[in-house]
Structure formats: structure tokens, C-alpha cells
């Protein structure tokens, strides 16, 4: 069974713009609750929060310091 994608909202980044995952607030494999702040990302020196779209087990796909672009999938929540 595939998990729920954790995606960077497409309105946070312009087409050619890059951002970075500054940190994950939970380790890979941790259980998270829906709506919890699970990661921080940074775009042009502005820091933003990523919330868990679902509850379940966190699977990190883009680790801290990883570069992200518009609409990037940075992780999954497994049921």
C-alpha cells in the first residue's frame, strides 16, 4: 500500500526557483499526527513549515539540506 505524499505546495516556489529542506522535526520511521509540523523549508531566506497531511509513519525522501523545486515530493506518510 502506498503512502500519502508530502509535497511542497506549488504556490511556494516559482517555476525556476529552488528551495531547501532545512530540517526534519521527526526521524524517518517516526509516527506523526495529522497537522503536526514535520519539516522546515527555506525559500529565499524565508523559513516555512511543512505539515503532516495525514497521520502515520514518516518516510523521508529528501533529507535535510536537500534541494527542492516547485511541487517537489519530499516524503511520504505510510498508514
Amino acid at each position, binding site marked *: 500500500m502506498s503512502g500519502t505524499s508530502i509535497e511542497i505546495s506549488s504556490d511556494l516556489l516559482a517555476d525556476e526557483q529552488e528551495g531547501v529542506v532545512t530540517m526534519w*522535526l*521527526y526521524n524517518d520511521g*517516526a*509516527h506523526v499526527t495529522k497537522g503536526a509540523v514535520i519539516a522546515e523549508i527555506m525559500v529565499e531566506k524565508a523559513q516555512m513549515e511543512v505539515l503532516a497531511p495525514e497521520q502515520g509513519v514518516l518516510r523521508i525522501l529528501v533529507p535535510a539540506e536537500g534541494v527542492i523545486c516547485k511541487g517537489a515530493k519530499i516524503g511520504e506518510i505510510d498508514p
Partner: protein
Amino acid sequence: MNTSAERILTPARAGREAVIWEMQRNPNVFFIGEDVVHMGGVFNTATGLAKEFPGRVIDTPISEEGFVGIAAGAAIAGMRPIVELAFADFMLVCLNPLANYAAKTHYMSGGQFKVPLVMMVGAGGGYNNGAEQSQCLYALPAHFPGLKVVVPSNAYDTKGIMHAAIRDDNPVLVMYHKATMGVGWLGPAIPTTLSQVPEEDYVVPLGTASILRQGTDITLVGLGWTVHQCLIAADALADNGISAEVIDLRSLVPLDKATLIESVGRTGRLLVVDEDYLSYGVTGEVICCCVEHDIRMFKSPPKRIAYPDVPPPASRSLEGRCMPSHDKIVAMAHDMVHS
């Protein structure tokens, strides 16, 4: 499953959590400073606060003497203000309300007035910001009787210290090193600044140092950013057969002399590492409190690594030479143990 135990926070986020908890429960707590409403503070100490507490987060003009004076007066009148001062260097333009009104009113009124003021102060260099935005100046407020001065170095301590500071009836300066806050634009978070942080409130008592690593050959004492340099150095020293104990000072006033003396009593060697200036500063005070207790416990003369007595240079290469570093700690500790 307990999810909160697995949650890892930066010091900036952990400190904010304590501020939010206290503001939710005590209507007398308010937050004031430059760029705190829209920007959330230069080092993210106030991110999201203005939205959650409309009217209780106040942006000020660039007038430190004015808004620190407002906060000191409000505290004397019974409020519990939290002032954000992004750069320790700016203490120099608000010393009068800080050192005269906040620090002395309890004494000068014969105890009739309390001053429950918290001031968060960003400190430290490493970003080539030049001599007016890079100093630590930890020793400066610590010199004035009446102010408590604490320097958390990791997320767990930052939250517990903020709770303790806001609940304290005395003026407390919470000095945080910029590099330890976990602010993205200053680079990747230092791993040892991140902690698992409980969601519920808790207190780290002001005036307590913390032994972060136990050792038998030498005691390394750091505060703020230098704690993390000491931890890196302790790893390197272990590879060379030297067992280093690492103490995070956490608090300058009150100073936890008992923990320092007990540690040096066991190791017989003391190396104090500070990013504030060398002369008339924290390193001298820490060494002196141990020497005064019993000079016979030293196997070798106590040593210190601190900022040389020059204003921080803006040049990257020159600033790097001035900063304390794990390499300097390793070299000096090695000399001390093998002297």
C-alpha cells in the same frame, strides 16, 4: 504511541513554544522588539506570535533605549514583558534602562517593586558581520548586580530556560548564540543543538550548569556556541586517549560553582572556552571561582581560550582566526594533559 518524545526541535522553535505556552496562560506577558511582528524576529524567536496574540506583540522603532525602557517600566508596573534584542551589541544603546532601571529597582525600592522582565539577546559572530553585530558581550550584563544571565545551547534547555525566565520575578537576559538557533539562512543546524523536546511545559532551573559528557583527564567548560566546539574537541581528544569532561555553563548569573568545582576536583585540569573577549570576562571568572575554592586540586595551571581583545574583524579569514575552535581546544588540552 508517544509522538512528542520523538519530536526534534531547533532552539528557536523550542524557545517559541515556551513563549506561546506562557502567553496563552498569562495575559500579562507581552512581546516587544524590532521586526517581531512581520519578520518574527531576526533569528525566528517570534515567528507566528503576532498572528496568535494580536495586540500583544509589538513592533518598535529602532530605538532600543525607548523600548527597553518601556519594558522595564511595564515590568515594574506588574506586566511580564519579553524583549527581543537581536544583537548583543545593541545592549550598548539601552544600558541605562537595563542596568539602572531593570537591575536596580528591586534593590533601590527596598524590595517593594519587582522587575519580571525577560530580554532575549542574540549573540556571537562567525558571519562576517563586523564589529557592531558580532560580539557576544556575555560578561557585560553579568557584571551588573540584579540581572540574571543565562545562555542556553540546545533546544531542550532553551525551552526549559525560557519557561523559568518568564516565571522569574527578576530581570533575566536569555542570551542565545545565533549559530545555535537553527535558523536556515545561517546554514545547517549544528546537530548537537537539536533535541527531543516534550510538548508539555518544564523548567530548567536558572543557575544550573550541565555536564554533557563525562571525562576523567580534563574539564572543558563552554557556553552557547563554544559548547559544541568543546563536544567536537572531546571526540578528537578521545581518539588520542584523553578523556575530556564537557560542561555547558548554561548560566552566568547565578554561576553554578558547585558543579564546576566538583568536576575540576575529579579531573584536576580546567580549560574554559568563551567567544566573549578574553580580558575581564567569563573565562577569568570561572577559573577564579575554582582557584579560590582550592588551588591544590589543579594538576596543571588552568587555561582559557577566548576572543582576543580586538573588535571582531569583518574579514572572513581574520574573523576565523579570532573565533575559538575545536582545533584550538584540542591543541591546548593536549598540552595541558601532557605538560
